[in-house]
C-alpha cells in the first residue's frame, strides 16, 4: 500500500528520535569538554546591548501578542482589512453567507 511507502519506508519517527538522542549526546560531550573553571555571574548571563546598560527583567520588555508580526499584518493590510471586515459578528451576515454558498455550489454542480 502507498501509505506504507510513505509512512514506513520514508517516515520513521523512531529513527528521527534516535538521531535526536545521538545529536543530544554529541552536544553533551562537547558541553563537557568546555572550560570547567567557568563560573556563571550576572554579567556573563546578560545580553550585550551595544554597551548600553541592560534594563534587567521587566514586564515592559516582554513583547505581547498584538505586537508580534505587526509588520507582516501591516504589509498585508489590503488583504486583512476586507477579510477582518467580513467577520462582522452579525448573525444575519452568517446566514447570507450560508445562502450565497448554497447558490454558488448549486450553480457549479449544475453547469460544470
Amino acid at each position: 500500500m502507498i501509505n506504507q511507502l510513505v509512512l514506513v519506508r520514508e517516515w520513521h519517527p523512531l529513527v528521527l528520535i534516535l538521531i535526536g538522542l545521538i545529536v543530544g549526546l554529541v552536544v553533551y560531550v562537547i558541553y563537557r569538554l568546555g572550560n570547567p573553571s567557568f563560573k556563571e555571574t550576572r554579567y556573563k548571563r546578560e545580553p550585550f546591548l551595544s554597551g548600553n546598560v541592560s534594563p534587567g527583567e521587566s514586564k515592559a520588555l516582554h513583547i505581547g501578542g498584538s505586537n508580534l508580526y505587526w509588520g507582516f499584518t501591516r504589509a498585508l493590510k489590503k488583504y486583512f482589512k476586507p477579510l477582518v471586515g467580513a467577520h462582522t459578528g452579525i448573525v444575519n451576515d452568517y446566514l447570507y453567507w450560508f445562502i450565497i454558498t448554497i447558490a454558488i455550489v448549486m450553480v457549479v454542480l449544475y453547469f460544470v
Partner: protein
Amino acid sequence: MNIDIVQHSPALILAVPLLFAFLTPIVARISEKGRDAIFFLGLFIMAFFVSVMAYEVYTVGGWSYVFGGGTVTPNGTGSSFFRILFVADGISAMASITLTISAIGAAIYSYKFMEHDTGLNKFNTLFLLMIAGVNGMVLTGDLFNLFVWFEVASVSSAALIAFKNYEGEAVEAALKYMILSVVAGLFFLLSIGFLYGQYGVLNFQLLAENITGTNLDKIALTILVVVLALKAGAVPLHFIIPDAYSMAPGSVTAVLVVASQAGLWVLFRVVFTLYGLAVNTFTLGWIVIVLGILSMFIGVTMALVQKTVKRLMAYHAISQTGYMLLGVGVGLAVLGQPEMDIYGRLAMEGGIFHIINHAMYKGLLFMTAGVIIYETGKRKLDELGGLGHSMKWTMVFFMIGALAIAGIPPFNGFASKLMIYKSVYSFNPLLSIIAMVVSILTLASFVKVFHSIFMGPKDESVSKTTEAPKPMLLGMAILAGVVILFSLFPGLVVSTIVEPAVEALGVIV
C-alpha cells in the same frame, strides 16, 4: 451473551449516555458525589461498548444494526423497513473512538474546571446528550435519524456553549450557534424530503442503490454538502466557530471540536457512499477542495491577527479542517480514474488520519487555554506572559499540541500532513504548496502564542498563578499521551483504524 453485546453495541453506545444523562440529575438530588460517579460511570460504560464495537469491526468486519431486529428489504415489504438503523463500520468505529477519548479527557478535566460553577447537574446531562448526539450522527444508517441526532447534538452543544451564562458573550455565541444550527437543520430536512419524495426510502444503503443524479438529487446534494460544511466549520460557513469555541468552557470546546468533525464524517458518507459516481465526482471533489483551501488559508491568516487565545485557536481549528477537506476532496476528484486511484486513496487516508490527530491535539490546546483562563482570568494575549515560570506542565502540554498542529516531526500532525502533501502534489502541486505554506503560518502563529503566554519575566502577576489542578493535568495528559502514541506509531494507526474508515466509504456493509 458476548455475541449479543457485540451485536447490540451500536445501540448501547447511544443508549448508555442517554440513560445516564437523565439519571445524573435524579442521583444529584441525593448526592453530588453520586452524581459525579454516575456521570463517569456512564462515560466508561459507553467507552466499553465503543471498544467492543471497534474490536469487532477491525477483526471481523462491520454490520448493520436494526432496532428490534429484522432486516431491511429494498422494496419496502420487510417488517423493519422504517425502523431505526445503525451502521457499525470503519467510519463509525473511528469517529466513536475519537469522541470517546476526547470525552473522557474532557470529563476528567471538567471535574475541577467546572467546580466553581452552579448547575452542574445540567452540565453533566448536556455533556452526555452532546456525546449521544454526535455518536448518533456517525452511527446512524438513515437520513431522518441523522437529522434527529444532528438536532440533539446542536441543541446540547448550544446549551453548553452558553453554560457560563454570566459571561454575556457566551450567551450571544450560543444564540448564534443555535440560529445557524436550526436554519441548517431545516435545510437538511428539506433535502431529505427531496430524496424521500423521489425514492420513498431514507436509509443510506437503499438510497445509494437508487440515486441516479436527477436535478432534485443535485439540489439535495448541494444542500447536504453546504449544511455539513457549516457543521464542520469550513470557510465561508465558519463564522460561528470562533464565537462558539472561544466562549464555551475549555472542556466543552475539546468535545465541540469532535462534534464539528461529525459534520465531516457525514459529509464523507454523503459524497462517497450515498452519491458516489451518480454525480460528477470531479466537480464535486473540486468543490470540496476549494472549501478546504479557503478554510486552510483564511483560517490561518485570521488566526494571525487574533488577540485572544481561544479565538486564535478556533481559527486554527478552521484551518486544520481545510486539510481534511483537501485530502478527501482530492480522493473524490480522482474517483473512478484508475491511474490516480492510489494517490486519491492516500489523500483520503491522510485527510481522515488528520481528523483523529486534530481532535487530539486541538482538544489538548483548548484545554491548555482553559487552564490559562482558569488560573489567570485573562483571555487577551497582551495581558498574559511569563506563565512558563509557574505552569510548567501546562507549558509542556501546550508545546506538544502546538508542535503537532504545526506539523513538526516527529509529531502526529506531521505524519498525516505528509500523506496529504505527497498525494495532493501528484494531483495538483499548487494545492500541496498552499498546504505547506499554511503549515508554516500555523507554526508562526503558535510561536506567537507560546511567546506571549509562557515567555517573559516572572513578575507579581505570574507569582500569584499556580499550576493547574491535578484532574485538569490528567485530562490534558490523556490527550497528550494519545498524541505521542500516534506520533510514534503512525503506520500502525493508519493500518488499524484509518484504512478501514476509508474502505467503509466505498460501500455500506
